[in-house]
């Protein structure tokens, strides 16, 4: 009622005036918010036009310098390898990979393998040869043994000299000093380069000679799925070469293909391989070599401490029948069944013969 009285007093409707006030305020607010944005509309249209103009006429000089930055080549009077290239960018990538993941993960891989072996030896221990029969069967011929040790010794020398090149700066320089390590490296480099030829010949003959007996079959899958009997102590029957040995063979096979293949590039700079080729070859050589070194550490453990009676097979060529029964049952059956006189020693049964 009081409002009504007010209305009559001023002669105006206060509700109407409040409505006008509200809407004019709202309009003012909307205007202050939207009007400055018209600027964006103007620049937006302009920039679209500008972009269209830029597309048709980009700065040729900036393109020129950008191309040089991207390994573009020119002309030079100086003779030599890639002298016509001003900036090559592959080197930076090579540096980042070599100094980064290659050395880091390589070292981790080697450490993990050694750690796993220590844990395995502590927890499970070696596969013992409980009783010896005293009777032996011929496992490795003289040729096989010579091949194995020839490749093995060269592999170890090449691994030490190669790892000195990759890790020497971090590991050996603090121990030997720069002069001492440089003297060693100056000797290790030619040793690595020249012995690699003899290693290549040996590993090629060895892999070719042993390839037929390493073709996987169904008994290998069962062997591998059971973990090689290392954890439950029950050895699944295996032929002359068991699943684990075949796995190592094929790791060695493909690892050697990559390692030897990339090594050939690195060995012959006189053939003018581009820097890009050498960078790639060096990385492949590093990865494959480290993988094989890690694998060989496992192989050495399993062949010596890990399995009693294995090493004598590769040294004397003869293994105890109990060992053969434990690790290569199918092979022993074959030897016994095929030719009883074999236990005396001359011939080795064909590994390619079908297993029972």
């Amino acid at each position, binding site marked *: 009622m009081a409002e009504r009285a007010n209305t009559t007093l001023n002669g105006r409707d206060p509700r109407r005036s409040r409505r006008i006030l509200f809407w004019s305020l709202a309009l003012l607010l909307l205007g202050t918010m939207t009007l400055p944005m018209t600027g964006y509309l103007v620049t937006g249209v302009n920039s679209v036009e500008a972009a269209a103009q830029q597309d048709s006429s980009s700065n*040729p*000089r900036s393109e*020129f*310098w950008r191309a*040089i*930055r991207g390994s*573009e*080549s*020119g*002309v*030079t*009077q*100086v003779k*030599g*390898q*890639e*002298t*016509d*290239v*001003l*900036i*090559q*960018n*592959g*080197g*930076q990538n*090579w*540096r980042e990979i*070599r*100094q980064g993941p290659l050395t880091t993960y390589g070292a981790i891989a080697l450490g993990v393998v050694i750690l796993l072996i220590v844990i395995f030896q502590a927890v499970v221990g070696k596969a013992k040869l409980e009783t010896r029969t005293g009777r032996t069967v011929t496992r490795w011929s003289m040729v096989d043994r010579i091949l194995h040790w020839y490749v093995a010794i060269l592999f170890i020398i090449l691994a030490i000299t190669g790892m*000195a*090149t*990759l890790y*020497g*700066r971090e590991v050996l*320089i603090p121990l030997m000093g*720069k*002069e001492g*390590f*440089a003297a060693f*490296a*100056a000797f290790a*480099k*030619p040793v690595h*380069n*020249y012995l690699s030829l003899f290693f290549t010949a040996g590993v090629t003959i060895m892999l070719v000679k042993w390839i037929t007996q390493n073709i996987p079959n169904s008994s290998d899958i069962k062997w591998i799925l059971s973990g090689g009997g290392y954890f439950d102590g029950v050895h699944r029957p295996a032929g002359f070469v068991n699943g684990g040995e075949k796995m190592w063979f094929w790791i060695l096979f493909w690892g050697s293909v990559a390692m030897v293949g990339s090594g050939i590039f*690195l*060995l*012959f*700079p*006189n053939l003018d391989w581009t*820097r890009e080729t*050498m*960078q790639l070859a*060096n990385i492949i050589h590093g990865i494959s070599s480290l993988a094989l070194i890690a694998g060989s550490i496992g192989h050495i453990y399993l062949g010596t401490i890990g399995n009693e009676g294995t090493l004598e097979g590769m040294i004397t060529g003869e293994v105890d029948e109990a060992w053969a029964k434990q690790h290569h049952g199918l092979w022993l059956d074959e030897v016994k069944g095929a030719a009883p006189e074999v236990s005396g020693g001359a011939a080795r049964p064909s590994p390619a013969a079908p297993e029972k």
Partner: protein
Amino acid sequence: MARMKFLCDAERCIECNGCVTACKNEHEVPWGVNRRRVVTLDDGVPGERSISVACMHCSDAPCAAVCPVDCFYTTDDGIVLHDKDLCIGCGYCFYACPFGAPQYPQKEAFGVRGKMDKCTFCAGGPEEDGSQAEFEKYGRNRISEGKLPLCAEMCSTKALLGGDGDMVADIYRERVLKRSSRPQTWGWGVAYKADS
């Protein structure tokens, strides 16, 4: 302390190869080794440019980072030098270097390269300054005599500048302003990441 840098003004280089010759003569560099070279781009067409290039003495030198025997060192003037007594000629610095600076006296089968040789900014090596042993291994040590690199000193068009980075940049900036061109500090973006 000065921070030594090279700068080649591509608007001025006329590809006379005087810098290459001066370097070879001053340091009595053997056959097949060229510490400096001139590269011409777009040769024979409008917009042709020539650039003289050698070791740029990088701040974070890739050669030093990958060297297996750690034979590189940087002087107080920012010059990257190496010790030929330690070098085993593995070729890694050549793979890593963006500018193709490292050179080898040999290139034979079984990775035989000899000791690496490269531009020393006319600052010799680890041997005693100005000694005969230093000259035979690394060439003249002009820096120890208070002189700048000969390649830049004798450049006929003063395209190649070598010296303290700030002074080189000042001279170049003045030129760019005078001719109202765009600055093109060639190679500096690659070589001097940390301190330019």
